[in-house]
Structures are given as C-alpha cells and as structure tokens.
C-alpha cells in the first residue's frame, strides 16, 4: 500500500510544518506535523503517506549493525 521511505532533510519550515527531504536522489515535500522534536537539516526522517512518522537515529543504526556483526560473525571468522 504505502511503504515507509527514509529521507534526509534538506530544508525545514517549522511554521508551516513541512520539510523537503531527499530519498534516493529525489526531493519531496513532506509534512512534519507528527514530529514533536526539532527537525534539523541533514537528519533522517522515516516518511509514510507524505508524513514524517519518526526520526531515524543514524548513529544507532550503525551501532546496532556493529553489535549484530560482532555477535554473529566474529566467532566464525
């Protein structure tokens, strides 16, 4: 139906509650009504049906992948 698409914030208009995000090289205006925290250029948002539904924590993404790799492969290699 509608996939969640991650996008990086290019510009933000907090007054009108929208941001332009870039996903896979395409820029799109999305609503940030549902995001309570501040939205800053360069951050990643998960966008669903034209609305950002949450911020993606990139550090966390890298960290968990590292932990996962350690937990599952190091012993084998």
């Amino acid at each position, binding site marked *: 139906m509608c996939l969640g698409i991650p996008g990086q914030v290019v510009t933000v208009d907090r007054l009108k509650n929208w941001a332009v995000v870039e996903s896979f090289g395409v820029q799109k205006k999305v609503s940030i009504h*549902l995001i*309570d925290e501040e939205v800053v250029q360069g951050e990643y948002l*998960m966008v669903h049906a034209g*609305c950002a539904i949450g911020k993606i924590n990139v550090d966390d993404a890298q960290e*968990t992948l590292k932990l996962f790799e350690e937990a599952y492969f190091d012993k084998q290699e």
Partner: protein
Amino acid sequence: MINRNDPEIGKKVLQKLAGLADQAARELGRPPVLMEICGTHTVAVSRSGIRSLLKDCLVLKSGPGCPVCVTDQSDIDRIILLSRQPGVVIATFGDMLRVPGTYSSLEQERARQAKAEIFYSPLEAVDFAEKYPGEQVVFLGIGFETTTPAIALSIRQARKQGLPNYSVFSINKVVPPVMKVLLSDSELGVDGFILPGHVCTITGRKAFDFISAEYNKPAVIAGFEPVDVLEAVCLLLKQIIERQARTVNGYTRLVQEEGNKKAREIMNQIFDPADVYWRGFGLVEGSGLKINRDYADYDASLRFPVEIDTVSSQSNFGCACGDVLKGKINPGDCPLFAKRCTPLWPVGPCMVSSEGACAAYYQYELS
C-alpha cells in the same frame, strides 16, 4: 547511510541462522514457526529469498498485516456503492482500485462512470479537493497505526481550510486487538512474532508487551531491510532456545519505547475505537477507528450513507484469503493460487495488494 541490504552480511547471517534454527527445533521437537505481521515484511521476506532459503529449518508465515487484504468484503462493497454516488470522487492509495468486491471493483466502476483518483498521501487529496470545489472528494481511510495519523491530519487540514467537499471513509484499523485474536487461537502454532516496525514507531514497544507478558510468546520489532529481518529472526530463535518470552525492540534506530505521542494525540483527536469486521477474522472488538462526533462532518459514511445487503456480501468464490491472513494456510495451498488467481486476474485482495501474501509469493517464490 549504512547498508543493511548487503548480500555479504546476509550470507553470513543465514549460516548462523540455520544453526540457531536447528537448536530451536531441538528445543521444540519440530521446526520453529515464526510469523510476520506486516505486509512490507511479507514482501521483504519473499523478495530477499529469506523464506525459501530457510524453508528446511524454519517456517516463516505471513499474518494479517496487509491493510487492503484484511478489509472485509462488506466494506469493499460499500466503497463500490460510494463510488456510484453522484458527484463523488474516490481518493485512494493505489492498491484499492483492483480489489474485487462481490459484484465489481473500483477499477470496473471507473471504466463505467465512477471517478477514482490515486494519491500517495491523504494531504494531496485535500489539495485536490481545494482545487476542484465542485467535486465531493472521499478519501478511503485504510491502513494501520502508521497511516492513520496522516489521515487524521488530512481531516484537520480540511477543517482548517474550511473545505466542505472533503471527507474520509474510515476503515482504518489498529493491530493489537487482532493480534490478541490470533494469540488466543489454540491451533495457531506460532512460536514467535516479527512485529511491524512502522506501526510500532507510532504505538511504541510497550503497546505490544502483552504478546510476551500475557501470551508468553517472544516478539521482536523489526525494520524492513533484509538484514533487519534476519536480525529479528535471530533474536526470536535465541529466545526460543533460551525458553524466554520478551517483546524486544530490534528497530531502535526508529522505534521509541513510548512511540510517537504527537501522532497518537492527533489520531485520538479525530478517531474513536470501534468494533469492526476483518476479512477472515470476523468482528474484532476495538480494532477499528471511527471518526468521532466532533469531526462527524468529515465522515463519509454519514455524508453518503450507503446500504449494502450484508448477507449477499460474500468473499469471492473459492478464495482462501481469510485462512491465508490467519496463517492457517500458505498462499500456495489455495487451490486457485497461480491457476485461476494471478496478479493479472486476481480473485482475492491478497493477490491484488502489493503487500498481499499471495501476490508476494506469486511474484518471488513461484519456482
């Protein structure tokens, strides 16, 4: 960003996973059975080949996670009648167009006289209503917790702009109540659940704690890259091996313990819980969302009341979508699968929706 799509990582994890699955199988005395509860996971699992690669050591079932698929036949029939109302333009996500009702589909209606427009976002449908004041734009409110806040926003926006020609036909649903129905089914035989990451972004992890706390089953919230799914499967197998049952957040880069409060506030401002019908499940208490009294003027079911004959609203002959959605059978077990029912000529919604289990198995797993 990081690459969670990396085939090298995938390959290594798969080996590890097969070992864990064997251990879990020894613990259970049979291969472990896991279920994904999200249409996007169904597609990810089929497309990446995870399901077929693991089929010898682990069963991965699909559950009621495709919003189009779980829409009851009576609601499809209501939508068809709605599309026939003079002046109405149905505004919808694309997947709804081809879903066959008892007598017709929106696509067939459109070929006759009805108007139906596809939108990526309900907010675009509001813009459309503003642009065409002579049309009555009825948005088909379909989806789970992930999509409902956007639909709620569209209603707020329409009110803010004073648009008299925008309304929503809500068949929106929430996931936890149907999970409870699944979990109460003694025949289900599922050992662990892969939970929908984007639904949980809104609800928070806690909303699904009941799976482990009340039903003693392990559950893991997962993202949608192949590595995310593999990671979730590993976390579930570990719990099975260690005889634990916890509801774990495996998608910490997006899902918060408390979820997205703001989104829930907006949702609750406009919708009230309701008892609604699900395909395959029947009436599920508190599982639907009805537009509340304060926003009743945006409720398409009140603005354009349509009467269907519920007795004659019947699932298409021979279609086993109901059993597929409950995880009782696999798409391939339906006698019509890939014979009379294909994506080109779908018999049931599970073959229509891009997130439907039948469509996913057809496209990626038919060898």
